[in-house]
């Protein structure tokens, strides 16, 4: 009998591999763990609310109304940058569909030749030359692709991300090609906001002390003023140093056109110093490229809205790939065994289809083929 139509409306992004959560009809894309992101939101909104509630009335009256206005603008900008960083696709590379994965496998087999039984197959690396520098492209066993230069696989989100910088739990997302500039602007403006609040906090205390004496200022309690004040100052102080430090670090990386990942691995430092093939060797050009470069499209977004999807396909909890009209219904690791038993669509003529490999089975695959 024909397959039963699934009555529940399956949303397209539920079939996407990787450990991301989606909202707003697929427009919002975040990592699964969002606890620390909520903490970030709470700290920023909480501290700013205290500032607006307790400090701003005094400052607006005694100094200038422009002070709270500018603080509001800065706060809104910080929130916009935070949400933009957290909600956008960092530059996730979609996994290879079965045909592409098989094509790459065949190329690798052809390149490696016959590996004698008992020996490990050589590591899957492709060398490319970029601006007279040899860069090694590694093969990703999860996504079944050779990673483009500067891409890396994030184990938390289980995706390959283009120009991977790092996974930031504070924003609840990876930082990659598409959202790096928002992340940088977030750290920069948050540093400015923290400095601004901290400075005016001090100004406020000083001004009140001049009016009423220092001890009276501390004793004064509109609400639980001393408690707010101390928590406030403490949060500001620690945030300030960490944010200023982080902003400084990323400014350094941008001027050299490096990612945090490359810096940690030491790809272009030490004996490789000065050999970064992506750098324009000019600080201004590097900054322009990273901050004012083109806004790259989200290929995940395109795959959500372009790929045709049929709810009658059998649901596979382990399905690693985005189905489209070319994907055969049954995709299993023993694909070679299955395909040899009957006529199937996507089979290159006169070629053995090796089973889709993983690092552990690499040697075994070679052994099986040789036998």
């Amino acid at each position: 009998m024909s397959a039963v139509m699934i009555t529940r409306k399956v949303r397209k992004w539920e079939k996407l591999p990787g450990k991301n959560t989606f909202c707003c009809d697929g427009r919002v894309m975040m990592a699964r763990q969002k606890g620390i992101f909520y903490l970030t939101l709470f700290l920023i909104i909480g501290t700013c609310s205290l500032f607006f509630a307790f400090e701003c009335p005094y400052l607006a009256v005694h100094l200038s109304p422009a002070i709270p206005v500018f603080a509001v603008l800065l706060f809104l900008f910080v929130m916009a940058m935070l949400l933009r960083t957290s909600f956008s696709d960092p530059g996730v590379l979609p996994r290879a569909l079965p045909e592409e994965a098989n094509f790459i496998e065949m190329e690798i087999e052809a390149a490696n030749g016959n590996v004698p039984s008992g020996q490990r197959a050589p590591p899957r690396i492709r060398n490319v030359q970029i601006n007279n520098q040899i860069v090694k492209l590694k093969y990703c066993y999860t996504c079944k692709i050779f990673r483009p230069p500067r891409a890396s696989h994030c184990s938390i989100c289980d995706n390959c991300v283009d120009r991977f910088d790092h996974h930031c739990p504070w924003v609840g997302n990876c930082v990659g090609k598409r959202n790096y500039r928002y992340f940088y602007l977030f750290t920069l403006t948050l540093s400015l906001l923290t400095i601004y609040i901290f400075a005016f906090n001090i100004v406020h205390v000083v001004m009140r002390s001049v009016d009423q004496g220092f001890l009276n200022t501390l004793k004064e309690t509109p609400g639980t003023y001393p408690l707010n004040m101390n928590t406030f100052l403490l949060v500001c102080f620690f945030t300030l140093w960490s944010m200023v430090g982080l902003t400084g670090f990323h400014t350094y990386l941008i001027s050299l056109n490096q990612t945090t990942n490359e810096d940690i691995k030491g790809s272009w430092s030490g004996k490789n110093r000065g050999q970064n093939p992506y750098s324009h060797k000019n600080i201004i050009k590097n900054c322009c490229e990273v901050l004012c470069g083109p806004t790259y499209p989200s290929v995940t977004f395109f795959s959500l809205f372009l790929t045709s999807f049929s709810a009658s396909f059998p649901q596979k909890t382990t399905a690693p790939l985005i189905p489209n009209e070319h994907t055969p219904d049954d995709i299993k690791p023993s694909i070679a065994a299955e395909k040899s038993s009957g006529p199937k669509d996507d089979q290159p003529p006169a070629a053995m289809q090796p089973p889709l490999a993983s690092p552990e089975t690499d040697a075994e695959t070679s052994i099986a083929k040789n036998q």
Partner: protein
Amino acid sequence: MAETHSLQDMRQQAAVAAKVFIQRDYSNGTMCQFQTKFPSELETKIDKQQFEETIRTLNNLYAEAEKLGSQSFIEGCLACLTAYTVFLCMETHYEKVLKKIAKYIQEQNDKIYAPRGLLLTDPIERGLRVIEITIYEDRSFSR
């Protein structure tokens, strides 16, 4: 003749014989460029010049999308000043060029590739990693 067959018809009726994947060319950096090397599987199907012309045009279009010129700089600065809210009502330069690319691929498929039993897939559907060319089984299309 071939003109009466739409791509939909071909996809639904023809069986896929093979797929060829044109890989990215990283020799000039991480810009989106594809290799112009002519794959051996297409030797009997299409003229080498025509194929290279298609890939070269696509490469030029992608270069235009990713160009670091004054336009992208102004767009970037304007967007930054408005906290990137301007993109809610305006299309980015890259998206405009992607539309051009989609149109070009559609045109190429209709005029050149479909009559030869081939189909170009827009690279954006494959994450800008490969250009997938589907080779359909050589059946006679005349009815």
